[in-house]
């Protein structure tokens, strides 16, 4: 990451913030200058960054610097000093701030780590290399769940853990949430992770088998095969219209 920028992206709750905090702690232990910022107004973010870099965000009169002056202060510092800037939930930052990040990166010397959930393919996200934070392995998720159980003084057997694990989808936040739901006695079956894949189109494609049967019946003069194939095809066609007219799942809890 030296003299460069990187974007770590993944689904919500996949552990980006935890990773960022661990990284900051590690870099600080090794003696690096690190600042971490979370989405706020550009001025608030730049003030926070300048404070973490021990820069003075006030002028000689003791007044807070204007936004442009803050931008210049921090970008000048990043050019001169080998420091690392970590932005969590970067997709939620204002376009103005993201544009400044892009310009700071262009000036060089800016070590930038962006953490984002499904970032847009624009400005800074387009110009920095991206790495996807994949869902965690079953083993790692099981370890998180076991630790969560131990920290709450609860004993769960493998059957319970296995049942809860099927709701996590490799997402550590959901792993802990599913455990807490169990702890509170909330009965859940579906989960909120993004690993679901709707196979409705695949099932409907199977309906083409009936159309094929219909043509075989036509070719072999088998009337029953022809009619059955036709009926089956028509039923699948009607079914497909019905399924596609079903309401889509909303993005809000309901």
């Amino acid at each position, binding site marked *: 990451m030296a003299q460069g920028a990187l974007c770590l992206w993944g689904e919500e709750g996949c552990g980006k913030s935890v990773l960022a905090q661990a990284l900051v702690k590690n870099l600080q232990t090794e003696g690096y200058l690190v600042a971490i910022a979370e989405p706020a107004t550009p001025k608030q973010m730049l003030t926070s960054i300048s404070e973490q870099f021990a820069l003075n965000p006030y002028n000689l009169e003791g007044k807070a610097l204007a936004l442009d002056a803050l931008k210049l202060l921090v970008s000048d510092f990043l050019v001169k000093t080998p420091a690392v800037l970590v932005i969590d939930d970067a997709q939620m930052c204002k376009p103005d701030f993201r544009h400044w990040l892009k310009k700071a990166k262009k000036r060089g010397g800016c070590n930038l780590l962006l953490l984002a959930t499904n970032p847009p393919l624009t400005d800074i996200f387009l110009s920095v290399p991206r790495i996807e934070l994949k*869902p965690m392995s*079953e*083993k790692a998720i*099981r370890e998180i769940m076991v630790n969560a159980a131990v920290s709450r003084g609860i004993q769960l057997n*493998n*059957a319970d*853990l*296995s*049942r*809860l*694990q*099927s*709701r*996590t*989808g*490799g997402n550590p936040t959901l792993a802990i949430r599913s455990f807490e739901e169990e702890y509170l006695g909330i009965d859940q*079956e*579906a*989960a909120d992770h993004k*690993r*679901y*894949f*709707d*196979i*409705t189109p695949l*099932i409907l494609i199977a309906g083409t088998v009936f159309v094929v049967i219909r043509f075989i019946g036509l070719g072999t*003069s*088998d*009337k*029953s*095969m022809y*009619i*059955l194939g036709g009926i089956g095809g028509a039923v699948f066609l009607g079914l497909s219209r019905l*399924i596609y007219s*079903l*309401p*889509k*799942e909303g993005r809000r809890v*309901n």
Partner: protein
Amino acid sequence: MLGISHVLISGTATALFLGTAEPSVLLTGAIAGLLPDIDTSLSPAGRMFPWITALFESRQGHRGVSHSLFASSLVAVVVYTISFFLYWFFPYASALVIGYSFGWFADVFTQGGCEMFWPSRLLCVCPGNRNLRLRTGSNNEYIVLACLIAIAIAIFSINSRGGLFTQFNRLIASPSGVIHLYNEEGSHHKIFVNVDGVRSSDRAKVDSRFLIVQQSGSGFIVQDKSNKIYKVGAEPDSQILTERITADVGESAVTNLESLTLDDEPIGESLAKFIRSGSSSYVTGQLTIEDLQSLPPPDPYQFHSIKQSTTTVTLEAAPLQNVLSLLGDEFGKGTLSIKTITSGVSS
């Protein structure tokens, strides 16, 4: 999904795909539907094989590898390898594969889904909206269960009466359905047709049951209870024009075809050996008979199974008794084929 739902779905799918009503095969398929849930100790399969379940539970979540196409392929390889050595096991192997596959596939319609394309960790579901998917033990699942019971009973009933195509052929009453059943069962059973139509000569209504003697063009040569021969079908030379025709499988019977060559030999004596108890014989072929006297005029309502032209007699599915009574005393030259349907014998 409840265990009973898995049992019903897998049993029904086995009956539908194998077209069988054999209880042991259906039971195998139905029980196989419980096997994918071997990855949880809360299931019947998990309780039966605790050591395998413990292995799954310690490593992964529920509805993982055991609910996948990979697992189905693995089951198919194992059971079909066994059936390669034990031929009688083949229908059970098919039932196991179908039952197992539909056992986990049913979970696609539940809120949790299953890892159908394992090792991909995607959870396959249908439909996409979780609120429309089934929740284990919910009222909706019981409604689906009731529908499944009705479907299972219907399929079992259809299969026990000859299968889906046979029943559908009966429903649409088309000649192609009769041909299908005749081709399938005709070699070891008597096939009867229920004809609903009109006589071509006077358009009198016909609603009777006949025994199929043989196929002729797109129609059939049939025999009624009084041993009269007709051609039924839609062709112009048919004595009975069909509007609806359905077929039934009758008692066990074996059909044999033998040939006989006559070289100016007595016809009655040569054909006498084909008179056998419990069997009906029909003669087809051409004979040249010197000094042949005119045969009595044929019944205009029946199929002309014996046709005369000067010294030549052409036979087509002519009942043996009729041939003997009309031509038994003559001397003939030619080749005949004798079709014998013997009742009460299974091939």
